[in-house]
């Protein structure tokens, strides 16, 4: 909130007041809870799969593909130790030469989206652009999960 509002609340007797310097957008981008009428619509955070396989830059494609396939996935996200997203592997990349290093075949610096984005709007974009999945990250680039188009469609069908 505004620092002035925080100070004013303290003069009104509130003692547990914080000034969230990074703002509301950053709060929502971390997937933290919100209130209000907009909260009724499903967001990317509600549907993104947090169990998406991950891997590092120096792993081999064959190893990552085996791990992803065993878990029922045809995608994986390339991250570092801080879970910051470096790349994305969709089926095309996972079907590269098994001996190739991930950093050589990954889609580098993929477009990422924030957890608070409306699932309905993401579906609209994903369908228009024929994208099966999209990485969801916090505003500092850390992996939140992978949003699958089929999950959004299922959620919309369930709702209607």
């Amino acid at each position, binding site marked *: 909130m*505004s*620092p*002035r509002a925080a100070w004013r609340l303290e003069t009104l007797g509130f003692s547990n007041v914080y000034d969230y310097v990074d703002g*509301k*957008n950053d709060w929502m981008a971390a997937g933290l809870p919100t209130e209000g009428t907009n909260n009724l619509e499903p967001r990317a955070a509600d549907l993104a799969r947090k169990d998406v396989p991950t891997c590092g830059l120096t792993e081999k494609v064959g190893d990552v593909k085996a791990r992803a396939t065993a878990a029922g996935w045809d995608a994986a996200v390339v991250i570092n130790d801080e879970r910051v997203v470096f790349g994305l592997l969709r089926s095309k990349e996972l079907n590269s030469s098994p001996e190739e290093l991930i950093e050589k075949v990954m*889609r580098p610096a*993929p*477009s990422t*989206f*924030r957890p608070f*984005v*409306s699932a309905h*709007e*993401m579906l609209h*974009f994903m369908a*228009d*652009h*024929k*994208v099966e999945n999209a990485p969801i990250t916090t505003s500092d680039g850390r992996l939140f999960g992978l949003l699958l188009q089929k999950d959004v469609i299922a959620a919309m069908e369930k709702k209607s």
Partner: protein
Amino acid sequence: MSQSTAAKEKCKGCDREIDVCEFCEQPGCPVAICYSCVNRELKQTLPQPHAHGG
């Protein structure tokens, strides 16, 4: 001096020339969109509510 030979695309939102669609990153995307427009359309940026510093 080298010159880029990449075909430019136009953002469907603002008509600005872009290298590649910001949403799908696919060359030749028929509904290519720039970084600013995709962020605005997905409401990933909020309009600044105050002219002052808060």
